Structures are given as structure tokens and as C-alpha cells.
């Protein structure tokens, strides 16, 4: 491998380097700002690198007159046996890295008030992000598996980061055990697939699987199903969703922001690539199962959230439903579905980050217990109008109201579904969105009601001057821009379509 060939792997390499440097920095001297900055710089560089990978494709589509300036599109850049760096992976890498960056920023605001070691969280975050990057590029079961574990392992540490908090530990335990079980399912499924096809490479599996017929490919199918079980757990799809609210509640707010966005995004990216490259779309059984999962997730997620009074749990349930929606788009298959999934994940990530960001900022100064009761948010608008505005926009976006990012996502889901005439799924999406409104509005209304009592949990007055506040404001603007002028983002997602469609 020469240097040029390694160039496309730059995001991964930079992130790895960042991890090493950060570890050395922590070892050298514990200093919160300094260590956080090291990680942030590294992640920024990695993000720039992955954006640079995506740039030519984007320009060709969106601003053709400048396309020449960025050099010829060279994607797919690299196909090592395990990883492939194409526009698709560049997009998801960017998404994961941006999320990690946002989480780092939020963590900084959050951890300021934490007593105890604050620096490891960045290290774990960078490690987990690396796992996400690997998954985004993965084209092989080995890298899939290693990426997934690299993503999850640091998360155990992050979820249980507040080691004095019983709830944090409980969440970590639940996640660790169940996640490990899910990993085992995925592994066993992979083994079955491998046993049947003799290959670990997605594309080869697809090719070889074409040759089986009848009961012969049952091992392949069941392997796929077991992988699906594991993935469904990671994506918290019903009926594998039960852990979600508990872990969301127990984990520190910025970690939840990461857990609910980056980790799921990366998993979805690899799932989609597996389905496309291994041609798993041809198995009606799998799709039927997924349809059931999607409908169940949508209904259960929304129904569970209805009367929820804990905003972190509420967002957890809502994320169950949202991944039901994404799965609905996923099932539609085809280029439009890939695009829809991309757009939806983008809008979902932005929105969820903003929502958990507000929770993070609300919780930061006291560290020990997050401001997660809806009660704590009552009348927030009259005290912190901007923070409330951000949360309002985020909730509206989750509800899929026009002018916000969420609407574009929902629109895409509908487009993908209607295109393939998935009426049952679309009906479920519509139904779920309708009942979902109830709890989003319920949460939103709290922000504006009068709160006569003393507010125990409240963001510091100068929250907006911190990096976290600035980032949240930027996220709000991004949500609105995505909702009103989505074309450039659509172009990005289109640019990162999967080859082999």
C-alpha cells in the first residue's frame, strides 16, 4: 500500500492518530479543556478529510460550474479487502464525525460540572467514532463486526461514565449484557452465512447466494435473520427496544445524544450496504420480517411515549418510532430508498442532537442528576427563550412539521414508500406520526406554560456563550435551513448514493 492509496482512509487514520495523541495527552497531563481540544481538533481534521472526499461528487451535482476546481471525482477511492471508501461511506463518515464533534462539544459543557475524571470521555468518544467510521466503510463481515464492537465497547464506558450514579451503572449493565448478546447473535448469523457461502465479503456473498435454491439457502436466510436480530437491537427496533428508554435515562445526556445518533447511523449505514451489496433485498421473508418490525416499532414507540414524563425516555421512545420510519424507507429499496434513508438520518441526527443538546445544557452545572423530568422544562420559554426555541424546533422537527428538517425526512419516507406502494407501512407511518404529535406537543407546551415555582434545574445564564450553546444555535439554524432549503443537502445525499444499485 502506498501513500496515495492510503489517502482515502485519511478520516480513519486521522481519528486513530487522534486517539493515540489524546491518550498521550491525558497521560501527560489531565486538563479538561486541553484534552477536549485535542480530540476536537483531531475530529475536525477527520471531518474535513471526509468532507473533502465527498466534495467533488457534491459539486458535480449541485454546482457543476465549480466541479472542475475540486479535481476529478475519484470515488470510489479505495477498496482494501475490508474497507471501501466511496461517496456513500464518506457521507456517513462525515455524519458520524460531525455527531462525534457535537457530542464532544456537549460533553465539554456537561463534564465541566462533573467531579472525577473528565478526560476519558473524549478518548472513548473518539474510539467509538472510529468504530462508526469503520462501519461506514465496511464491506466485509470482519470489518463490520470489528467496527460494531469498536463502536459499542467505548459506549459501555460512556454510558456508565458517572460511576457514582446508580442509574448510570444500571444503564451500562443493561446495555453491556444485551448488546453483547446482540453481538453474539450477529456473529452466529455471520457464521451461518459464511458457512453457506464461503465468503465474508458482501459482494461475494451476493454473487454466491444467487446460486442456491430451495431449502439450500435456509442457512443463509437464517443467518441473515440472526444478523437482523442483532442489528434490530442496536437500532432499538421493537421488539428489541426494551432497553432503550432505560439506557437513555441512565446515561449522561451527551452520551445519549451520541448513542441515539451516531451509533445508530453507522449501524444503519452498514445494514443498508449489506442489503444492497449482498443483494439481500431479494429475500421476501427478510423484508416481511422487517415490515413487521417497522410497524411494531412505529406503533409501540409512539404509544409508549404518549404519557411519558421523562424527556430522555420520551426521546428514547421517539427514536424507536423514528427508526421504524427509517426502516420503512429502507424496505422500499432502490436508489430513492437509499437517498431517503440518508436524508432521514441526516435530519434525524441534527434534530436529536439539538434535543439532547438542550437536555445536556439544562443538566450541566449539577452533574449528578440530569434535568430529565418534563417538569423541569415548564415555563422555560419565559426564562431562556433561545434554549426553548431550540427545543421547540427540535420537537417540531421530530414531529415532522414543515419548515423543519424532520418534515423533509418524512417527506422522503413517504416518497420512497409511495413509489413502491408500501401502503401498509405508509399507513403505519402516518398513524404513528399522528399519535406522535401528541407527546411532542405535550412536551412543547410545557416550555410555554407558566412556572410559578423555583426552578431547580436550569441552564446557566451564559450558556449561549459556551461552545455548546453556539453549536445548538447552529443546529437550530441547520434544522430550519434543512427544512426550508434542503436542496444542497439533498445533493450531498444524492452524491453519496451506493454504487452497485
Amino acid at each position, binding site marked *: 500500500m502506498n501513500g496515495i492509496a492510503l489517502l482515502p482512509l485519511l478520516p480513519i487514520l486521522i481519528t486513530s492518530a487522534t486517539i493515540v495523541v489524546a491518550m498521550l495527552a491525558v497521560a501527560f497531563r489531565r486538563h479538561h479543556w486541553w484534552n477536549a481540544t485535542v480530540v476536537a481538533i483531531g475530529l475536525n481534521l477527520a471531518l474535513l478529510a471526509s468532507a473533502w472526499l465527498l466534495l467533488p461528487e457534491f459539486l458535480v451535482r449541485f454546482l457543476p460550474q465549480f466541479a472542475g476546481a475540486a479535481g476529478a471525482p475519484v470515488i470510489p477511492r479505495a477498496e482494501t479487502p475490508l474497507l471501501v471508501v466511496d461517496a456513500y461511506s464518506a457521507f456517513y463518515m462525515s455524519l458520524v464525525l460531525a455527531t462525534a464533534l457535537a457530542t464532544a462539544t456537549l460533553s465539554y459543557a456537561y463534564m465541566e460540572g462533573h467531579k472525577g475524571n473528565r478526560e476519558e470521555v473524549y478518548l472513548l468518544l473518539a474510539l467509538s467514532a472510529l468504530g462508526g467510521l469503520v462501519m461506514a466503510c465496511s464491506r466485509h463481515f470482519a470489518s463490520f463486526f470489528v467496527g460494531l*464492537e469498536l463502536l459499542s465497547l467505548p459506549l459501555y464506558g460512556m454510558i456508565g461514565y458517572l460511576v457514582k450514579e446508580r*442509574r448510570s*451503572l*444500571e444503564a451500562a449493565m443493561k446495555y453491556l449484557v444485551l448488546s453483547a448478546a446482540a453481538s453474539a447473535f450477529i456473529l452466529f448469523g455471520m457464521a451461518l452465512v459464511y458457512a453457506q457461502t464461503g465468503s465474508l465479503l458482501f459482494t461475494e456473498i451476493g454473487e454466491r447466494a444467487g446460486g442456491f435454491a430451495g431449502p439450500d439457502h435456509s442457512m443463509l436466510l437464517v443467518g441473515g435473520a440472526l444478523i437482523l436480530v442483532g442489528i434490530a437491537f442496536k437500532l432499538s427496533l421493537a421488539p428489541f427496544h426494551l432497553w432503550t428508554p432505560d439506557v437513555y435515562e441512565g446515561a449522561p445526556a451527551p452520551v445519549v445524544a451520541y448513542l441515539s445518533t451516531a451509533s445508530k447511523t453507522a449501524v444503519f449505514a452498514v445494514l443498508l450496504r449489506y442489503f444492497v451489496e449482498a443483494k439481500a433485498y431479494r429475500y421476501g421473508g427478510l423484508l416481511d420480517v422487517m415490515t413487521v418490525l417497522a410497524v411494531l416499532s412505529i406503533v409501540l414507540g409512539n404509544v409508549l411515549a404518549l404519557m411519558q414524563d421523562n424527556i430522555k425516555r420520551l426521546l428514547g421512545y421517539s427514536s424507536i418510532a423514528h427508526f421504524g420510519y427509517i426502516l420503512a424507507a429502507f424496505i422500499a429499496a432502490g436508489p430513492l430508498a437509499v437517498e431517503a434513508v440518508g436524508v432521514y438520518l441526516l435530519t434525524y441526527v441534527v434534530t436529536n442532537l439539538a434535543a439532547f443538546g438542550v437536555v445536556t445544557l439544562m443538566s450541566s452545572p449539577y452533574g449528578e442528576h440530569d434535568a430529565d423530568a418534563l417538569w423541569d422544562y415548564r415555563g422555560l420559554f419565559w426564562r431562556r427563550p433561545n434554549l426553548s426555541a431550540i427545543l421547540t424546533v427540535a420537537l417540531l422537527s421530530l414531529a415532522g412539521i414543515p419548515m423543519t428538517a424532520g418534515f423533509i425526512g418524512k417527506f422522503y419516507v413517504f416518497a420512497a414508500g409511495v413509489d413502491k406502494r408500501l401502503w401498509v407501512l405508509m399507513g403505519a407511518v402516518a398513524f404513528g406520526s399522528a399519535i406522535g404529535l401528541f407527546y411532542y406537543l405535550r412536551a412543547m407546551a410545557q416550555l410555554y406554560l407558566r412556572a410559578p415555582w423555583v426552578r431547580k434545574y436550569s441552564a446557566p445564564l451564559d450558556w449561549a456563550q459556551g461552545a455548546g450553546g453556539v453549536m445548538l444555535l447552529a443546529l437550530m439554524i441547520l434544522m430550519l435551513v434543512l427544512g426550508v432549503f434542503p436542496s444542497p443537502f439533498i445533493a450531498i445525499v444524492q452524491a453519496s448514493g451506493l454504487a452497485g444499485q
Partner: protein
Amino acid sequence: MIVPFEQVLFVSGVLFVLGLMGILIRRNILFVLMSIEVMMNSAALAFVAAGNRWGQPDGQIMFILILTLAASEASVGLALVLQIFRRFKTLDTDAASEMKG
């Protein structure tokens, strides 16, 4: 008589299911972690068996990766066990069920 490769796979499946059962029935988190190790190990066995069928080293490489994972998982899990025992004074998973609803 030569063993069909499917029988090896089946044995690994049985081991897998036994591990799963361990997770389902044990309240002691230590046993739960052990059961996870069993499940990982059974997956590894399946990989090695598949590698044997295709005459490839890939199965064994997956085994090595799984081994790494198992070690990592065990270390993190045991660290967590220590911490949990410190906070909850028990290894009962049901005791750690404050969050629900």
C-alpha cells in the same frame, strides 16, 4: 464415518442456545457474563467449522477477532461488575431495575 460439517454447526448452535439460556435464567450478573462468553465461543466454533468446510483461514481469523472481543467484553464487564457490587452491594440484576415505565 466422517462427521458432516452441519453437525459441528449444530453443536455450536446448541452451545449458543445454552449461553442464551444462561442470560435468560440467571440473576447473578457474573453468570450472565459467563453465558455471554459461552455464546461468543459458540459463534467462534461455528466460524472455525465453516472455515474448515471452505478450507479457508478466514474462519480462524474471525475466531481470533471474536477472541479479542470476548476478552475486551469480559474486562469491561468485570470492571462494571466490581463497580456495581460497590454501589448496589449485590450482583442481582433485578436489584438494578430502578428505571422503568
